[in-house]
């Protein structure tokens, strides 16, 4: 049975697409056949983060409307043969997605793939609701910052009331919390919400913590999912997250501030 996983957040700019790229590549590297779908119709960006923007011929909407077959639209990743990308349309708007159309495609994908990762658009409107509607599990991406935490709670409310699982009374969507752009030094200075604070407020099990890291921008500049940068802290944090998602028991890392030298502690910097 294929698992449908939505990467969502409510708020924009917290790292949904970065996370979608990292988690889907991580799952594929572990040998699980994975497809990642860009649900941000009209504003596609997963393609450029995955370095396949020049290979897009057909998109999600073309397939829904019958202008292309699914296999014509799927782009095979050049770095990992277990990973495929289904890009969003750049010219249509969010109304081009219908529940029936999305269901038909997800059913077809479920025959070929183990994991279907849905990269949600920001917001809580139709596009975001479509991305999460058929989900079995949800990874809620949250920054340690008040507006992001509040919006995550809103999207959790939608998962609990407006998903197919909620509407049909099936087992609820399994929720995971992923905290990104975490800065232990600012936490130590009392300038940033702590992990236990966020866990307590949202009451969702913690799947991973990704530190604020220069490697994320460097990776996206190159169109490389950050998990491929194995030396980077963010890449390692995402790989740990994937392992935990697959059921492994891994301790959280990168939660403590690096010890600074005596001079830095005294004189700053």
């Amino acid at each position: 049975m294929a698992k449908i996983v939505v990467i969502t957040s409510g708020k924009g700019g917290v790292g949904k697409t970065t996370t979608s790229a990292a988690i889907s590549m991580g799952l594929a590297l572990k040998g699980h056949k994975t497809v990642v779908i860009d649900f941000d119709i009209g504003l596609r960006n997963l393609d450029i983060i995955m370095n396949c923007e020049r290979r897009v011929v057909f998109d999600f909407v073309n397939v829904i409307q019958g202008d292309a077959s699914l296999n014509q639209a799927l782009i095979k990743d050049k770095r990992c043969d277990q990973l495929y990308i289904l890009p969003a349309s750049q010219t249509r708007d969010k109304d081009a997605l219908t529940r029936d159309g999305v269901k038909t495609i997800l059913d077809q994908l479920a025959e070929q793939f183990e994991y279907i990762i849905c990269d949600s658009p920001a917001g809580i409107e139709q596009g975001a609701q479509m991305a999460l509607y058929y989900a079995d599990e949800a990874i809620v991406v949250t920054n340690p910052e008040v507006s992001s935490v509040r919006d995550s709670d809103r999207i959790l409310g939608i998962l609990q009331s407006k998903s197919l699982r909620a509407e049909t009374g099936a087992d609820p969507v399994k929720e995971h919390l992923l905290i990104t752009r975490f800065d232990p030094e600012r936490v130590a200075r009392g300038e940033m919400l702590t992990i236990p604070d966020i866990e307590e407020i949202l009451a969702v099990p913690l799947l991973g913590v990704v530190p604020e890291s220069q490697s994320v921008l460097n990776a996206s500049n190159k169109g490389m999912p950050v998990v491929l940068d194995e030396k980077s802290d963010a890449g390692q944090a995402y790989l740990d997250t994937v392992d935990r998602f697959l059921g492994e028991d891994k301790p959280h890392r990168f939660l403590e501030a690096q010890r600074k030298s005596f001079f830095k502690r005294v004189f700053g910097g």
Partner: protein
Amino acid sequence: MAFFDRFRDKEEARSADVARDRLKVIVSHERRQRNAPAYLPAMQRDILAVIEKYVQVDPDQVQVDLNDDGSHSVLEVNVNLPK
């Protein structure tokens, strides 16, 4: 400089604590609203109208919440009357 920051930190409230406290309040308020029955906003307007017959109050000084503690629900109406 970090050396002097140490003195300053003790005086000011740590902003992360402020963030946590504000979030706890707003998130639990929004959750209650989300799970509230559909008639609650209309009832809130009616309650406000009754109060306004007697005292002039600011609409955001009236808070109506329905709290569910499992066995029963409690309708909580908080009104801050002007002095």
